[in-house]
């Protein structure tokens, strides 16, 4: 990442970060920062809210209004912030455990409300912070400390969940596809309403080692080899798509946004009850 951006958007005194060598949390965080920079947002008006997990530690490194909350609850805190002060751009950084396991309820309700938050979920397919237990997105039959004989849980497709729950912007990219990821986050932030961007990432330490995924670089290449762009995917058979993640924009629609609706209601009251 360019040093001007690091200089401008990071709390340099906090670096180097706590992440393991080769962990792609830094890469996804950089994509968020580039997206913010591309959009030319005022740092003072950006608020980053995160939960608990390796990925969620990102908030501490970033020089915005930052809030590192409790496990799974980042979106609920963020809802309070956005609703209380709509002029803030509120971005939520979360992990697959934080958002899809313990935080699932807040996630689906934020989707449903279509409140104007941008949620970036770093999906490393494992609980990194606690040392490698399986998460709702650990692929079936993969191993984790709590799945010593292979994981039997079905894979949770969080993009599909977001759509089912009513989100209005849903996209997926990876730590390999840095430019695409940056672009999708940018679009998510610009989108009025609830945006969800899943960033497939890599945990070489706990997921990678146990599942023999090779070096950090190997894991990035794996992401390249196991993803298909949505445009291409539409031309492929289910068989061809088997074992691949589709990346790109899944949904981008306009719907009434929660905070605006509330303000409209107040406006109405002012007119009708005065």
């Amino acid at each position: 990442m360019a040093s001007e951006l690091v200089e401008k958007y990071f709390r340099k005194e906090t670096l180097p970060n706590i992440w393991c060598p080769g962990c792609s949390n830094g890469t996804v965080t950089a994509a968020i920062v580039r997206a913010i920079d591309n959009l030319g947002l005022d740092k003072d008006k950006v608020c980053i809210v995160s939960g608990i997990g390796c990925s969620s530690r990102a908030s501490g490194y970033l020089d915005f209004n930052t809030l590192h909350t409790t496990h799974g609850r980042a979106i609920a805190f963020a809802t309070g912030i956005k609703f209380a002060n709509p002029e803030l751009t509120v971005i939520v950084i979360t992990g697959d455990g934080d958002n899809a396991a313990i935080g699932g309820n807040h996630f689906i309700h934020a989707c449903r409300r279509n409140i104007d938050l941008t949620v970036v979920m770093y999906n490393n397919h494992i609980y990194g912070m606690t040392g490698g237990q399986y998460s709702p997105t650990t692929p079936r039959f993969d191993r984790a400390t709590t799945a010593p004989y292979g994981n039997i849980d079905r894979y949770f497709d969080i993009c599909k969940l977001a759509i089912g729950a009513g989100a209005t912007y849903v996209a997926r990219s990876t730590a390999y596809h840095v430019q695409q990821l940056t672009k999708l986050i940018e679009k998510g932030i610009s989108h009025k309403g609830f945006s969800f961007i899943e960033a497939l990432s890599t945990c070489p330490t706990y997921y990678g080692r146990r599942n023999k995924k090779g070096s950090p670089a190997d894991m990035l290449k794996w992401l390249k080899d196991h993803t298909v762009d949505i445009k291409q995917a539409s031309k492929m058979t289910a068989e061809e798509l088997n074992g691949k993640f589709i990346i790109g924009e899944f949904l981008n629609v306009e719907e009434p946004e929660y905070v605006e609706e509330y303000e409209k209601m107040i406006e109405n009251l002012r007119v009708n009850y005065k």
Partner: protein
Amino acid sequence: MVKNKELVIIEEWCKGCGICVEFCPVKVLEIKNDKVRLIDADKCIKCGICELRCPDFAIYLEVKE
């Protein structure tokens, strides 16, 4: 243009993960004592891929004055 850029390594931040080494198209980087090292500055084509891929902001191109 390429000429007036310089590869900078922040050793303190580098964790020696080897990602930049692996992705460098001209294989001009290596890991030594758990840190990245530029083997041959002249061979570097200043493509910026290491900067793009380094998760720890420990390597980047800087414009020379």
